């Protein structure tokens, strides 16, 4: 077994496929964890924002010279309460007292306005306090950003008059500049945002992971059903074989995708979780594996090593597991890889039709495509909302198929080039 | 002595495996075949018989590589030619090659006549279909194949018929040398006999001038070829006429090989079979000295050092053992006497 794995890595095709696949996987795991936002967190105002660097307008005002600074007036406690829960206020007080040197007891949960005032004056999102892990730091950064959004509309621009009173006023002219370094919230959207104002890159990478998980579940379901039926049908032969072959043939003649549409549709929106949809994809994809395994087993069961095993008094299940399964294992691994790639594509197709997983917590590549279609990304020219997603799907399927071809060449030497 | 049709001088070729290791499968083979003669090659599997057959065509493609030596067919040296040139000018016209699985080479979607056309057109584009057909009918008739075969698909023919058809097609341009590698091993005995009969006819009618026949079936070889040479680990270790080789082998390895023959003939039932223990050496790193030394029971310490050069004796026979012919024959005689007293004999050391 180990030898075969080593052999696989000698095949250039497998190696290239493997490298592409692992890089995609690594990006999908690492990037969303390091990102400032949750994959589905709304950051900007609705509307497709093209890729580029973005600056929060509030921040621009904040960094103006001393005579123009923002203050808080008349914080509406109720409105704020909707955004900042009591628990968050506790956490803020704790943070201020522990890290920012505010005397203990000076702040109370009831006086949110003061807490927020202190928070805005003392908290520096760019500074990472000692003893704080990255995830915590990012969580606070996100919280701060959320707070700023919540406080939107309660900020006015003021300047100091001769008596030293603050006078309301505003006005920026074309010669007002700030240094970009002084702006706290410079957001970088490498792939722009979608129609909801969510960062495309974070969303897409996390969606890749979800799609992959769906592919894996569907692939495992399809392969295990196909493998079990194929083994049983091929080895036992006779009536069992006929029965299984009959069912397999029925599944083969009905176009799988139509079956998939019908099943997912009948499940209804409520029943379509990520796991359920992937299991359904798997349930419609097993016949090919079953047929292929069956034909392999048919030729294997007449081999002398199986006869020898029988003559050694081994039971039927043992012969299937020990004398047949290892011989088809390499083939099954290839079939599994292929099933994963087809399942990823099937999910994308289903979701495009609006029959994909019904979920608000995670995105899948298919859902992203559907959203792009729904909000006319194509018509408004927001290419960043679908081209990267298409490429991601294609690249994933490509790398998996490349690995499959590579393995095929390792296991079937007559297919090797040269 | 007749005209020499095929002459090979110190031919060396190798296989390069996927892991870039070299396997020296043909390591210094020299031979001569005169007009109208056939040569048999015998040996265990893995001793380089089939590689020799491929190498003799002069057509090298990965993983087989040419190292050195000359192949001279009727005065023309083909060893330095480019593969393309060999394919155009040598294959089919100078040399024809029949492997064991030749009968599976016929594309089942085309009629037999189409393959004849392909072979003829590869060398002579001007011939018309009619001429080719007439030529094929005439040749098939001489070789005892019905002309109806020409208008059939290969799947309609039996295994033996297919093999004979392939032989007839590949020799249609009357090549000078025919190299047959186990051409009848996959067939039943009756078809085998028909294939052999046809190859003999090809020789007798002069369609081919010389033949190399490779097989592990020694009784067959004895009946087909004039001379036999025994190969071991990429080298020729003995050569002589078929009768001499079967009934009076000199080299301990040939002796063991011939001692393993069983035929359904009266009296042979009580003959003690001989066995050579061990396996041929790994040709990635051939042993120094005599390659058979590790399995030989007549081994003396000097066997394992220095290259064994061929010894030529009695009527151009050749062997590659350190011992003299007389010494070996004496030893064999003594053993025979000891053996008839009821002792078990085994060639070689355990």
């Amino acid at each position, binding site marked *: 077994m180990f030898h075969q794995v080593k052999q696989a890595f000698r095949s250039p095709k497998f190696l290239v496929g493997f490298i592409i696949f692992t890089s995609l996987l690594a990006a999908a795991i690492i990037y969303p964890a390091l990102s400032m936002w949750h994959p589905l967190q709304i950051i900007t105002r609705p509307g497709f924002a093209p890729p580029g660097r973005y600056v929060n307008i509030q921040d621009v005002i904040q960094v103006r010279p001393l005579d123009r600074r923002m203050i808080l007036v008349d914080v509406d406690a109720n409105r704020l309460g909707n955004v900042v829960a009591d628990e968050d206020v506790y956490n803020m007080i704790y943070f201020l007292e522990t890290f920012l040197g505010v005397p203990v007891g000076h702040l109370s949960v009831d006086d949110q306005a003061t807490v927020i005032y202190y928070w805005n004056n003392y908290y520096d999102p760019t500074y990472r306090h000692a003893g704080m892990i990255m995830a915590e730091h990012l969580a606070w950064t996100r919280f701060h950003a959320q707070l700023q959004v919540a406080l939107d509309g309660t900020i006015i621009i003021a300047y100091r008059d001769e008596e030293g009173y603050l006078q309301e006023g505003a006005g920026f002219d074309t010669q007002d500049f700030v240094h970009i370094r002084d702006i706290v919230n410079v957001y970088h959207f490498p792939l722009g945002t979608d129609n909801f104002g969510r960062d495309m890159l974070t969303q897409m990478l996390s969606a890749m992971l979800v799609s992959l998980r769906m592919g894996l579940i569907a692939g495992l379901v399809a392969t295990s059903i196909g493998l079990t039926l194929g083994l049983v049908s091929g080895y036992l032969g006779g009536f069992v074989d006929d029965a299984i072959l009959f069912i397999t043939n029925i599944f083969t003649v009905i176009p799988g995708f139509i079956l998939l549409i019908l099943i997912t549709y009948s499940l209804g929106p409520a029943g379509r979780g990520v796991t359920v949809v992937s299991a359904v994809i798997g349930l419609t994809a097993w016949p090919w594996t079953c047929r292929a395994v069956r034909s392999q087993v048919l030729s294997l069961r007449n081999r*002398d*090593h199986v*006869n*020898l*095993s*029988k*003559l*050694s*008094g081994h039971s*039927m299940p043992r012969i299937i597991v*020990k*004398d047949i399964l*290892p*011989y088809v294992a390499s083939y099954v691994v290839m079939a599994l890889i292929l099933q994963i790639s087809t399942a990823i594509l099937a999910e994308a197709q289903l979701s495009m039709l609006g029959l994909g997983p019904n979920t608000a917590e995670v995105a899948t590549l298919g859902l992203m495509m559907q959203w792009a279609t729904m909000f006319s990304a194509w018509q408004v020219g927001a290419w960043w909302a679908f081209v990267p997603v298409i490429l991601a799907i294609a690249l994933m399927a490509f790398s998996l198929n490349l690995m499959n071809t590579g393995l095929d060449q390792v296991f079937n030497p007559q297919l090797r080039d040269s | 002595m007749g005209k020499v049709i095929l002459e090979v001088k110190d031919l060396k070729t190798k296989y390069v495996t996927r892991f870039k290791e070299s396997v020296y499968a043909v390591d210094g083979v020299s031979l001569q075949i005169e007009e109208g003669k056939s040569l048999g090659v015998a040996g*265990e*599997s893995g001793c380089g018989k089939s590689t020799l057959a491929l190498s003799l065509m002069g057509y090298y493609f990965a993983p087989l590589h040419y190292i050195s030596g000359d192949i001279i067919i009727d005065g023309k040296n083909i060893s330095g030619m480019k593969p393309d040139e060999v394919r155009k000018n040598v294959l089919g016209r100078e040399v024809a090659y029949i492997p064991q699985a030749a009968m599976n080479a016929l594309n089942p979607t085309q009629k037999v006549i189409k393959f004849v056309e392909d072979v003829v057109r590869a060398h002579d584009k001007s011939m018309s279909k009619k001429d080719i057909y007439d030529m094929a009918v005439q040749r098939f008739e001489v070789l005892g194949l019905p002309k109806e075969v020409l208008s059939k698909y290969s799947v309609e023919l039996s295994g033996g018929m297919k093999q004979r058809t392939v032989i007839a097609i590949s020799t249609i341009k009357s090549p000078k040398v025919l190299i047959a590698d186990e051409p009848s091993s996959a067939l*039943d*005995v*009756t078809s*085998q*006999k028909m294939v052999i*009969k046809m190859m003999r006819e090809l020789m007798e009618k002069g369609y081919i001038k010389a033949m190399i026949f490779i097989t*592990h079936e*020694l*009784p*067959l070889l004895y*009946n087909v070829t004039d001379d036999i040479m025994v190969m071991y680990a990429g080298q020729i270790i003995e050569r002589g006429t078929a009768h001499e080789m*079967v*009934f*009076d*082998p000199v080299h301990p390895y040939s002796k063991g*090989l*011939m*001692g*393993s*023959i*069983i*035929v*359904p*003939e*009266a*009296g*042979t*039932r*009580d*003959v*003690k*079979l*001989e*066995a050579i223990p061990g*396996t041929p050496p790994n040709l990635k790193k051939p042993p120094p000295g005599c390659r058979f030394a590790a399995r030989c029971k007549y081994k003396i310490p000097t066997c394992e050092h220095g290259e064994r050069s061929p010894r030529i004796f009695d009527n151009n026979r050749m062997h590659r053992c350190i011992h003299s012919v007389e010494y070996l024959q004496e030893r*064999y*005689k003594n*053993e*025979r006497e000891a*053996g*008839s007293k*009821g002792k078990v*004999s085994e060639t070689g050391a*355990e």
Partner: protein
Amino acid sequence: MGDIIKSDKIAVDRAELEKRPSVLRGDKVTKVFGYGNSKTVAVNAVNFNFREREVISIVGESGSGKTTLAKMLLGLIGVTEGDVYFKDAKRDISSHRKKKEYWRGIQAVFQDPFSAFNIFSKIDSLLLDCINLMGGKKFSPEKKYEMMSEACSFVNLKYDELTNKYPFELSGGQMQRLMIARIFLLKPKILIADEPTSMVDACSRATILDMLMKLRDEVGMTIIFITHDIGLAYYVSDTVYIMEQGKFVEVGSAEDVIISPQAEYTRRLISDVPKIHEEWDLSTV
């Protein structure tokens, strides 16, 4: 051929052979594959009687049904019609337990050593399976080790060099010898050898035949060779059965059948085999 050394084979006394108890007997054994129009009769109502310590060859060309017959005798495929008697009692292999019992008495050596071993399991487990089948599951590890070493040394292999190895690490001849070591452990009443030497080199052939004969003398088993090699059949067997299209066309002692064949088919078959001492007549085809 070189020179002739008389072998120490004992000529069988036919009259004595006929008196030995029967180990495997067949009465109108028939095998039909397929149904209706696609029906083919592979073995057509053959009768046979194999006796204790007898060496039998069933000779036939490919497609003659000899392998099908061997598989029926082994109980690997069912018999369509007719009865098989094992040690004069009607054979009963209706359950797995009964089959296991039957297989303690009848075993096989297969043609192609490269496909006869499971390449994923180690040599040790192959030999241990035999000990288990013979009811040695509870033996101490030392006892098992001793048995396996003995079996390996019988076929000139060293168990200590084989342990923890996989079959594909051996040469073809070694694998075939290992197969015989297996038989040595099982000591069955009957051994069916399906072309045991056709895939090994001529030089290993003698070793393998020698070992099989030695084993027969030691264990007292009946050996049934299934072969297309008439030379081999003549060389090893007491009795030869010639099979053509599912039927036995000629049965008798090796000397009678091979040297003075009566049936037309046998005569043709023997004339088609290349000879050494006599002229091989090519004009008959």
